[in-house]
């Protein structure tokens, strides 16, 4: 399952660098594409703004198949205050821009499954695939606008997983 989670995250991260290379974040002294996995970073008291944070929620398994199928619910959370140059008055536009980037990142709805524990990453035999995202209503908290989208990510367990 970890390989599927890693593959989904790397697919989104790679696509984001093509869609909007300016969306970055400085983490532990390194500039990275602006999408993080919550469980793979130090705990933060408040989500960083203007980046996407992927968190993993539910897990479902169907073992009545030739290959066990897993479905993991990923939630992608993002928020923004807009830009300083517009005094935050553009926060709605900034959130819309992130909505559009997420819609673009999520397509196509599949990616090859790779084992990122190996160096270099090893290609596996199956593909990870997912449904259309379900967007939540935006939430306004003072000057902060946030939204989340949930995606069900499916994969087949392979030998050795």
């Amino acid at each position, binding site marked *: 399952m970890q390989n599927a989670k890693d593959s989904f995250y790397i697919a989104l991260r790679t696509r984001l660098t093509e869609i909007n290379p300016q969306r970055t974040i400085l983490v532990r002294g390194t500039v990275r594409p602006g999408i993080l996995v919550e469980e793979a970073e130090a705990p933060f008291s408040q989500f960083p703004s203007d980046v996407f944070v992927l968190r993993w929620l539910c897990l479902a398994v169907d073992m009545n*198949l*030739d*290959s066990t*199928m897993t479905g993991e619910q990923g939630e992608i959370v993002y928020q923004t205050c807009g830009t300083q140059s517009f005094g935050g008055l553009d926060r709605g536009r900034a959130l819309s821009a992130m909505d559009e980037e997420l819609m673009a990142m999520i397509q196509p*709805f*599949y990616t090859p499954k790779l084992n990122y524990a190996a160096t270099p990453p090893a290609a596996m*035999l*199956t*593909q990870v*695939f997912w449904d259309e995202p379900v967007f939540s209503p935006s939430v306004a908290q003072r000057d902060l606008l946030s939204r989340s989208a949930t995606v069900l990510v*499916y994969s*087949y367990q*392979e*030998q050795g997983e």
Partner: protein
Amino acid sequence: MTATWFSAPAPVARRVRAFFAPVNRVAQTPVLFDPSEQGRFSLDAPPAPWISLGWVQDFVRKTSSKSVPLMTGIPAAPLEQVRETLEAQVSLQFLSWTKLTMGLATGSQHMNILAPAIGAAPAADGAQALPAVTPQSGSTSTSIMLALTDAAKFTPGAIVAVDVDYTGQTGYVGTPVAGAYVRQALTDVDYVRRVTFNVALVSQVTATGLTLSEPLPGGAPATGAKVQTVAGFVDREGGSFYQEWSGLFVLEASQGERIFFHYPRLQAITGAEETISPLNPKNQSGHSRVLLKGQFLALPVTDPLDGERVVCYRSFLPAANALV
């Protein structure tokens, strides 16, 4: 060399892609799809002459073929089975309204409403049309060369129909798709352009002609072809003509496997019909999407491989490294 493998469960697919190709009605030749040579084609760029009609929904195929047992003995018991009837139907909903989807989803001729001549008497299929203009040499499938005065008659964003004048011919008419069957001579010189599928959108008008936003289905204008502006489309409930197309439906599953349903001959079996689909299922009285509904009868072809009569080929290309 060695390969590893996995056990692939039943394919998981999101939607169905539909492709259609015109049957040559005069020669009674359908378009064949070869999964061995064409099976891995890009779904966004199908091999000619297949035309992509995009995603479809509520795709249902139903066999109506009947087998009956041959009973012998006392008491009678089945000796073997024989196929009594061979029939299959396909139904689907198109997610767009285009010339082709409308043509496929109607049971009869599908006509272009030609821009009317000034002062022409009203007619249900469109009034007498403005005179057609003749393309110049050098025209291609995406560029129609015209005289300066003729080019001035068109505007960017217009739809044009390109086909020959009607000069009394009978039989199937229309290029490259037979748009109608003329049983007795007519009087409308524009009739072929009224039923032709050779239409396209004009993206640019210059002093030398028209640039089209997409290639004409029939390729470069044929000798004798003329150009007319199309205001819209019209079809009728009734009539004696049946559209006939070759159909190819593709499900691309999650692991890259593909399922093809290839119907060499499909004829529409219902009149024009729409399905209303609310955009918000919780608000049935809100905005609704109007979908074209297509329902087709599969007609048989004789497979040259063994002489069997069949109506459909189902092909499956497994995922890479999947056990079979």
